[in-house]
């Protein structure tokens, strides 16, 4: 009797498990689409007859990360306001842990769970979702929503299409990358140096610190971030004067002159940086421990270094505010830039709000996205309840009052509506605002290209480890420029890297031809 029971229990357990797994097999979306279309029609009808209170539909969202402190209260306020504004929707936002966000969402999706929006990205599962038709195109839905359309620059809409279609609302605050340095202003003034404007000025500052300071070392950066050094330590930083631009495939670049894809060893605009890195490393400007360094931020904030890495992304500059607690310390953001040139940008964003095909409320999701593109509503979701969580400082800043921090990149980031924290360094604010302006950049000729390694998977998998084992040490100055470049070339071409180059070339040519 007993063993029979145990057997049936085992069987049930196994059966339910296999059902769970077989759910991954396929998701029949055709009838969903019809239902969605019908609902869409209804939605439009409803929004036409403004005035009469709409029935509230709960929209379910999945986002990665931890639930922000005090989120319940803010969400309640958001839902109350949605109701008051008669949008016809309320939000049910679920946060999933980062560690298995990608997997849980794709399992939910293939198991046919109905939810209405989630964060996807090229680094997550976006291309697979598009290929399998699991998310819907938003072109028409965006076109009819004025606030949403206008709160995001045209270049950003245009550059973040997939196969010519808007597959998700691009979420980002900056339109291109501007690199620079955070330096100790007090030290610069101590040695009577004028404001630093160029990379050469920064170099002079670093050498002065090296020579005159005993307790403070010149420059610190995390080992893994050192791949940014080649881009940072050249005189053409943040200009359009380089003859090569990034392809965003690590170690491969695009020559503007002859439209050829080349490896980092052939990119002549890096010559200066690699040589500088070699020299800096030997002279002790870069830490001997650079390969292993993981605490650059802490070390800088403890006052042990005179300069560190900066990027105008609205996040990097804020990491160094603790350094101001050191007695006498003042900070300054140095972003070398030539006013006569506009740096290249492909306006690419890293995060997208996407709508699964299984959602029956696509129109409503877009209504909410549009509603969130109104400054007042945007501020409510992103910064919390005014007066309790934050208070405005002018039009473009805010002062944080509570611990509420909403991860704007999952839903609310709109370049035209973002506020910067009031404690941001003046220079940081200035450059973040510039980086957020689409006009500040030149459209990259290879905009729209994003590498699909499917055809050269084996070769690509063989070349990528050289990023860590050769390219990083070369960027860090640990491997001397000449030797490092030769080694990188040998290694990459030795494992069939030319096939990867050819494939990138082929895909870029296709994008450029369009």
């Amino acid at each position, binding site marked *: 009797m007993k063993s029979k029971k145990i057997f049936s229990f085992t069987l049930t357990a196994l059966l339910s498990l296999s059902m769970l797994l077989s759910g991954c*097999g*396929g998701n029949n979306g055709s009838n969903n689409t019809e239902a969605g279309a019908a609902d869409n029609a209804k939605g439009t009808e409803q929004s036409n007859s403004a005035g009469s209170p709409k029935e509230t539909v709960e929209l379910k969202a999945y986002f990665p990360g931890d639930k922000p402190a005090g989120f319940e209260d803010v969400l309640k306020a958001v839902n109350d306001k949605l109701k008051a504004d008669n949008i016809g929707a309320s939000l049910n936002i679920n946060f999933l842990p980062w560690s298995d966000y990608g997997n849980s969402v794709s399992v939910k999706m*293939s198991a046919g769970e109905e939810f209405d929006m989630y964060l996807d990205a090229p680094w997550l599962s976006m291309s697979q979702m598009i290929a399998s038709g699991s998310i819907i195109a938003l072109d028409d839905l965006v076109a009819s929503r004025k606030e949403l359309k206008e709160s995001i620059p045209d270049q950003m809409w245009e550059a973040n299409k997939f196969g010519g279609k808007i597959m998700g609302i691009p979420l980002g605050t900056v339109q291109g990358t501007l690199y620079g340095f955070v330096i100790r202003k007090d030290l610069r003034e101590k040695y009577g140096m004028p404001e630093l404007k160029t990379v050469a000025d920064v170099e002079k500052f670093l050498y002065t610190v090296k020579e005159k300071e005993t307790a403070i070392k010149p420059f610190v950066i995390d*080992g893994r971030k050192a791949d940014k050094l080649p881009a940072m330590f050249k005189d053409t930083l943040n200009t359009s004067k380089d003859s090569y631009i990034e392809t965003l495939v690590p170690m491969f670049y695009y020559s503007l002159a002859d439209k050829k894809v080349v490896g980092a060893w052939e990119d002549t605009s890096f010559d200066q940086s690699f040589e500088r890195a070699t020299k800096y490393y030997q002279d002790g400007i870069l830490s001997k421990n650079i390969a*292993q360094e993981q605490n650059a931020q802490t070390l800088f904030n403890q006052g042990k270094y005179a300069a560190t890495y900066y990027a105008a992304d609205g996040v990097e500059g804020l990491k160094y505010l603790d350094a101001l607690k050191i007695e006498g310390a003042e900070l300054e953001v140095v972003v070398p830039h030539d006013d006569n040139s506009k740096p290249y940008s492909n306006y690419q964003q890293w995060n997208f709000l996407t709508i699964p095909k299984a959602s029956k409320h696509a129109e409503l999701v877009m209504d909410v996205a549009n509603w969130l593109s109104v400054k007042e509503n945007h501020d409510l979701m992103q910064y919390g309840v005014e007066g309790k969580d934050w208070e405005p400082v002018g039009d473009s800043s805010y002062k944080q009052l509570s611990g509420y921090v909403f991860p704007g990149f999952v839903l609310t980031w709109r370049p035209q509506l973002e506020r910067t924290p009031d404690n941001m360094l003046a220079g940081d604010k200035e450059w973040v605002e510039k980086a957020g302006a689409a006009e500040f950049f030149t459209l990259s000729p290879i905009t729209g290209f994003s590498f699909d390694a499917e055809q050269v998977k*084996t070769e690509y*998998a063989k070349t990528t*480890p050289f990023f*860590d084992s050769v390219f990083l040490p070369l960027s860090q100055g640990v491997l001397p420029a000449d030797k490092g470049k030769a080694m990188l070339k040998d290694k990459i071409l030795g494992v069939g890297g030319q096939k990867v180059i050819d494939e990138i070339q082929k895909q870029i040519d296709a994008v450029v031809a369009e």
Partner: protein
Amino acid sequence: MPNVRKRGAGYKLQQIARNPFLYGMAVPGLLFFLIFSYFPIYGIMIAFKDYDFSKGITGSEWVGFRNFNYFFTSDDFWIILRNTLLLNVLFIIFTTVAAVLIALMFNEIRSKYFKRISQSLIFLPYFMSWIVIGMLVQSFLGGEAPPVNTLLQNLGFEPVNWMFESSLWPWILTVIRVWQGAGYLSIIFLAAITGISEDLYEAARIDGASKLQIMLRITLPLLVPTISIMTLLSVGKIFNGDFAMIYAIIGDNSLLYPTTDVIDTFVFRSMRQLHDFGMSSAVGLFQSVMGLIFVIIANAVTRKMSKESALF
């Protein structure tokens, strides 16, 4: 002794029916292995497929051995394989030797309180996460002026540039591994020692054996089956680099790759850009199959030498 050979399936079922609770206790364990170890074997298929999650495991296209290609034809394949095996062999030998010594020592300690406290202390590193250990190592050996170098200089030695000298790292990692794992293993050995009959010791003492003689002639030989089983178990994982350990300690310091890059860290770096399930599963499968082969060989060798020390 009753006749063992003639007992068939019927007898076994009878036994189960007679002792349902006793056999019932095995069910959770069996279920665990069924669900988490045997059922997922089905996923091995991924290693031979061009896996696309929207098509599912069965729906994806078969590609034969293509997924294995990149790993076996990589330039550094032999270096990585050597590192993986060498590090594991060092870990197994030194951890076992240290654990046996610790267990023998503890067995001689008579003060109950001292024994308990020192046992807990030696056990402690086992509970530390590799991330924490990695930070500790970094704070001892890393930075511009590593504290260990100050110590060396005070003792009159030349300072060492730890983060550059890849030849030192197999030994450094072994020391860390022994420090972390030997205490845990020693408890298992100590338990085995406790199981040794007191009569043997008494007889030895009456015959006038010294403490050392007792240790070498009684305790150690009787400990051999446990030692060999523990070793066999680790041999099964000899092709798996301990990713958590190596990555937490070495990180992305490419200067140390020549001696510390193991299969798992190499695959991690190859796949960081590509996220290819097929290729990662292929390497995983290779590690498991090689592990199985090694266990079978090691077990056969052990059986030849001493039957009761073998695993099966």
